């Protein structure tokens, strides 16, 4: 297997992490919605925390994306 095909396969594997982050982000908003419907009066006060959780979950997915981009566009060495 030559290096450029290995690069593409590696980038594809790194993209799995983005899917995992999607589960995380869905979990954050899903749990928020579930509890917001149980107690709508308290929901507005928790929106800051909702976005902190969202930002933390999303960051990890974006790091996976950055890794995929680094692998894909790295100059083929050797």
């Amino acid at each position, binding site marked *: 297997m030559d290096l450029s095909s290995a690069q593409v396969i590696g980038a594809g594997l790194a993209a799995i992490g983005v899917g995992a982050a999607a589960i995380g982000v869905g979990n954050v908003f899903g749990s928020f919605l579930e509890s917001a419907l149980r107690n709508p009066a308290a929901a507005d006060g928790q929106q*800051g925390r909702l976005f902190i959780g969202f930002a933390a979950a*999303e960051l990890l997915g974006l790091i996976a*994306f950055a890794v995929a981009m680094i692998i894909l566009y790295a100059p083929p060495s050797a």
Partner: protein
Amino acid sequence: MAEAKIDPMHQFTVERIVPLHIGPYDISFTNSSLWLFIALALIFAFMLQGMKRQLVPGRWQVAVEGLTGFVDDMVRVNIGPEGKKFMPYIFSLFVLILTANLLGLFPLAIIPGQHQFTTTSHFSITGVLAVMSFSIVLIVGFARHGLKFFSLFVPHGTPLPMAFLIAPIEFISFMVRPFSLGLRLFVAMIAGHILMEVFGSFIVTGFNGGPLGWGVGVLSMLFIIFVTALELLVCAIQAYVFALLTTLYLNDAINLH
């Protein structure tokens, strides 16, 4: 397969418009600076139009007051009354990032040879913003609490044996803040724009590729409309998250915990 290759990374290249060199430093006026100035001009136009202090506010003034009120609320809820003096910084941060993000989605590419430039898609911009936030946190923290600021690394009520374990972890999570703050914004912008460019190229190659390709083209078209709507949401969320996290870090520095 002889069609021109569409390069999704080309939209992020910084091009010199007015070359300027001082010694070994390149301080050219680039398209990045141009779009920052456009963002600045838009913000000024928007704000000045709404700052006429009419007794009965018009639509424009209500829009401006809504924006300032939104940021003011965020600062007051997260920092408390002492956050009032950081309100101008948080507001500038939020409005600048929001405007730059939204300008990046502006469909200027319909004019041949032109394309808009997303200033927030470069780590050099978002990184500087993040480092600015981080330095303000450090300066405020040390100015207010002196060396007591280091108690930030040991949460209240930690048992002594655990403190040796928790302090390094808290220290790392504190030091990684500027990177995560800048990285999040810049990667989110880059990812969205690459996605749109890649599916845009699917439309072009799809419609050139016979009847089966038309189906691909139409599907990509529908998807790209959905992605554009999503990107508008992401622009707002990323600006909000950047400002929110800055207020939270400031809150740590002002109130300790």
